[in-house]
């Protein structure tokens, strides 16, 4: 150990000690001279003169000199150099980032425990000036300890890392490591990646580039692939309405990867936590098969189900969870003109009746008006070629505002009262014939809209075969949404939103009188989509995947999640809620405005309920693992390292060592902070000097005719 100075040039400031002396000796030359008429009186007064060049107050001078010396020493930033704190093998203090994979594939054998042991060993090997960060990652990355030299804290953070249900994504974790290294002031950086290096976790160059001079050390924990892995990849849940009750017939798709011989496995179906059925199947290596179960009656909402296959090395993908609820039929009211001579709603009515699960409950009214009683318990009103009166339109206005849906099929007699013209997305015009050639066709469909979204894929529904011979002209209003146009550009389907509800205008007919659309295969799903869209009915998802987030304040998201409104009051209204995770922990979601996100991070069933309540069947969400993680094909760590590290530079090493030595000295000086104490001491001396000199001045001023030096 020895005393060293970070900025020794400031020691020249010690020469400032002579300043008080020079000032003292030269001050005589700058003395004021007062011209006075006569000194005859002053000369008579006895006076005492002392030579200025003789220093009187040695103590005062010592104080001043010492204060100046301390000031110069402080600016030179002294520190006790500890030579034992060598630069170490890596050439100086290191910024170490340890990335620990916590994806569920790390649960194979003892990979995760070994990765924790390795991380612990890395922390134990840190030098006194090194700093380390701990980042746990799966699909995302969480910094558990950031740039600290506190090993206890690092170990404690490491103990909290558990295997999750997420899939491996190296990109976010490496981005975090890059950020930590870029923000670090230490000369060298090291990144340790402890993972099983699944190929799916890296999609190529994700914009990660570690700072120059950083060292990347991949530490593979896994073995060379799994010998065998069974997984349930999908569960189909078709429904049927039998005798007014819904029956679900689950069928699971089971995959076997690897293996060497045919093997018997058991697939079980659990409903509400109880095993309902089991199937024993025989699977050859690298094969997939479908397992059909007997139907079960779906009578209660939020029925939880799980299809499970026998245990293996990677057990997280051996189960598939789902939640199903009995669906409520959509009530559709078709209003026909009272004077209509033909059955205009035949095709429409039949199309809505054809469902496996009885989704639509259709009723028909032949009248030119809509009564209030008609709108009770009704979700969708279809005005099929009818001219309603103004009062009916006002009732429909309220119906729309409350969330109902209205489809206006204009056809020949269809119309809309002028008093409620603002409800329509445009102005109805005269009949236009398309008799030339083979009639008009639909030339433009808004496939991004919910109505046509299902037809967007190839072979998902062909509207081009339908011919239109007649349609009503329709001039869209400003802001109206046009969902479909004929090939001549005129409007076929337009939409307007009012309150919570929607109103669609179909400018042709829904039977085969003006168009042969009703004779096309696409007619049935088209009508179904129209009704479902107007009724606001979204397809409920039987399960989510880990990593997804559900906004519990968004009604549409809740509907997608399968929320049954009648038993989950208050959820979308923003009341207090608490979510229970599959592992048993709770997530509080206090009341308030704005989104209330529920991150889904565990495999199993999440339940949401008002705090302090125990509903018999709470709103439940099924969450399954990402099956990409089941593919344990390995990524070459060397390739990954080449992609994220800078090419080795020839001069980087020497520069780093020099920089490291400099930074080490700075770090020692910063930690010791001797300059602060020196400054404080100098300040104290200056204060003492001021007090002493003032006291001496007062004493001197009291003496007659004395000139002090």
């Amino acid at each position, binding site marked *: 150990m020895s005393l060293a100075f970070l900025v020794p040039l400031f020691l020249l400031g010690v020469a400032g000690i002579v300043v008080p002396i020079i000032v003292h000796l030269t001050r005589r030359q700058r*003395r*004021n*001279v*007062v*011209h*006075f*008429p*006569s*000194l*005859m*009186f*002053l*000369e*008579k*007064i006895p*006076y005492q*003169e002392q030579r200025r060049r003789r220093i009187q107050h040695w103590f005062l001078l010592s104080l001043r000199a010492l204060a100046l010396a301390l000031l110069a020493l402080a600016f030179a930033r002294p520190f006790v150099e500890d030579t034992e704190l060598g630069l170490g093998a890596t050439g100086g203090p290191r910024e170490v980032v340890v990335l620990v994979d916590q994806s569920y594939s790390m649960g194979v054998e003892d990979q995760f425990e070994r990765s924790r042991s390795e991380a612990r060993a890395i922390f134990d090997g840190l030098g006194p000036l090194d700093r380390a960060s701990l980042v746990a990652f799966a699909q995302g990355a969480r910094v558990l300890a950031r740039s600290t030299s506190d090993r206890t804290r690092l170990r404690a953070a490491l103990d909290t890392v558990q295997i999750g249900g997420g899939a491996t994504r190296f990109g976010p974790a490496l981005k975090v490591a890059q950020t930590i290294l870029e923000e670090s002031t230490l000369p060298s950086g090291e990144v340790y990646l402890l993972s099983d290096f699944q190929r799916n976790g890296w999609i190529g160059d994700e914009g990660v580039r570690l700072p120059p001079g950083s060292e990347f050390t991949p530490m593979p924990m896994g073995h060379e692939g799994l010998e065998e892995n069974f997984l349930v990849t999908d569960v189909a849940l078709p429904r049927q309405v039998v005798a007014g009750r819904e029956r679900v017939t689950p069928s699971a798709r089971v995959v076997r990867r690897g293996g060497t011989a045919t093997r018997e496995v058991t697939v079980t179906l659990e409903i509400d936590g109880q095993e309902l059925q089991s199937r024993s199947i025989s699977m050859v290596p690298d094969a997939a098969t479908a397992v059909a179960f007997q139907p079960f009656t779906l009578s209660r909402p939020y029925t939880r189900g799980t299809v499970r296959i026998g245990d293996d090395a990677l057990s997280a993908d051996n189960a598939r969870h789902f939640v199903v609820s009995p669906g409520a039929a959509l009530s559709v009211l078709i209003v026909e003109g009272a004077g209509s001579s033909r059955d205009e709603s035949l095709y429409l009515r039949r199309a809505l009746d054809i469902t496996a699960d009885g989704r639509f409950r259709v009723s028909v009214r032949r009248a030119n008006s809509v009564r209030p009683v008609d709108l009770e318990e009704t979700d969708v009103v279809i005005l099929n070629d009818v001219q309603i009166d103004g009062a009916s339109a006002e009732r429909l206005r309220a119906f729309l505002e409350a969330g109902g849906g209205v489809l206006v099929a204009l056809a020949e007699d269809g119309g809309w009262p002028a008093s409620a013209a603002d409800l329509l997305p445009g102005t109805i015009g005269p009949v236009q014939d398309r008799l030339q050639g083979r009639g008009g066709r639909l030339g433009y469909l808004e496939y991004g809209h919910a109505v046509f979204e299902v037809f967007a894929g190839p072979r998902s529904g062909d509207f081009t075969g339908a011919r239109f011979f007649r349609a009503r002209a329709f001039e869209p209003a400003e802001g109206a949404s046009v969902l479909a146009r004929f090939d001549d550009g005129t409007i076929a389907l337009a939409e307007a939103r009012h309150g919570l509800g929607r109103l669609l205008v179909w400018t042709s007919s829904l039977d085969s009188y003006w168009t042969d659309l009703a004779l096309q295969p696409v007619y049935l799903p088209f009508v179904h989509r129209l009704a479902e869209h107007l009724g606001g009915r979204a397809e409920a998802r039987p399960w989510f995947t880990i990593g997804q987030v559900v906004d519990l304040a968004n009604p549409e998201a809740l509907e997608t999640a399968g929320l049954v409104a009648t038993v989950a009051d208050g959820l979308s209204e923003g009341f207090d809620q608490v979510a229970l995770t599959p592992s048993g922990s709770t997530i509080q979601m206090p009341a308030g405005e704005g989104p209330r996100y529920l991150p889904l991070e565990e495999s199993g069933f999440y339940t949401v309920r008002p705090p302090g309540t125990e509903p018999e069947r709470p709103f439940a969400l099924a969450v399954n693992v990402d099956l990409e993680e089941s593919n344990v094909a390995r990524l070459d760590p060397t390739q990954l390292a080449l992609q994220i590290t800078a090419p080795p530079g020839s001069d980087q090493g020497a520069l780093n060592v020099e920089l490291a030595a400099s930074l080490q000295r700075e770090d020692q000086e910063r930690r010791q902070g001797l300059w602060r104490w020196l400054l404080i001491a100098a300040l104290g001396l200056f204060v003492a000097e001021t007090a002493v000199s003032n006291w001496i001045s007062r004493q*001197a*001023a*009291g*003496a*007659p*005719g*004395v*000139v*002090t030096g």
Partner: protein
Amino acid sequence: MVTARTRGSTTGTQFLDPAVLGRIGNLQLLAKTVVDGFLTGLHRSPYLGFSIDFAEHRPYMPGDDIRRIDWRLWARTDRHYIKLFEADTNANFVVLLDVSASMSYGTHSLAKLDYARYLAACLSFFSSEQRDRVGLVTFDHEIVEYVPPSMKHLDTILHILDGAEAGRRGSLKEPLLQITELLGRKGILVLISDFYEEPDRVIEAIGPLKARGHDMIAFQVMDPAELEFPFEQASGFEDLESHEQIPVVPGKLKEDYKRMVADHLETLKTRFASNRIDYTLLDTSKPLDLALFQYLLAREAMRRTR
């Protein structure tokens, strides 16, 4: 701080400040009501002679001019009496102005010499108005300028005053002795100085003049800084005449200085009074006309006590 006296465009009329002379004019009217005869002025002649104003009779002595025998009294008493009158001849009025270097000092608007020159000019003009013969002597350690008393020398005096400069060492004894030789006829002598000499030496210097029968009026001109010593910082004090320097730390010294100055002034006052010399201490920060007023009052008192 020394206020250097400026020369240049100033003329003799500079000293005849109308405001100052206005005050003096009023005093002149006051004096006229007291003194018999306007033409004889305020200054009483030290000679008794044959004038138009009867003074007294005395018996005829051999050698007297027989033309002065009062024949009417001889007819009544058969005795010869000589008729005596107040002399109507004008007095000699001479200003003796000290122009030594110490007179150049001044911390106020005026240096002491400026103040003294104004005072000398006013008195000379006023005396000239009284039809006195006015003269001027400036001196430091010797006579610098001499203007003999005359009724026609006012302009010369004002010119000399205008050009008077201080810069040399001063003393009283030698120049006053020379002045005694110059002034043969008795008159009124106004001595303006700062009297930076021991009181005994001052009286000793004035002695010959007083012995020649001159009426002496002494004005001591002092700057406020000389009286109050308002200095605070330790400084080197330099004598304006000898240029000697001594280091001084004002403090307790200030009180000693003021005490010594007060003793000096008191001694001067006592000594002047015992020698029947009018003495007035003038502060350069005080108005000049106030000093003149005090002078006139003193002169009037002197006339009454004669």
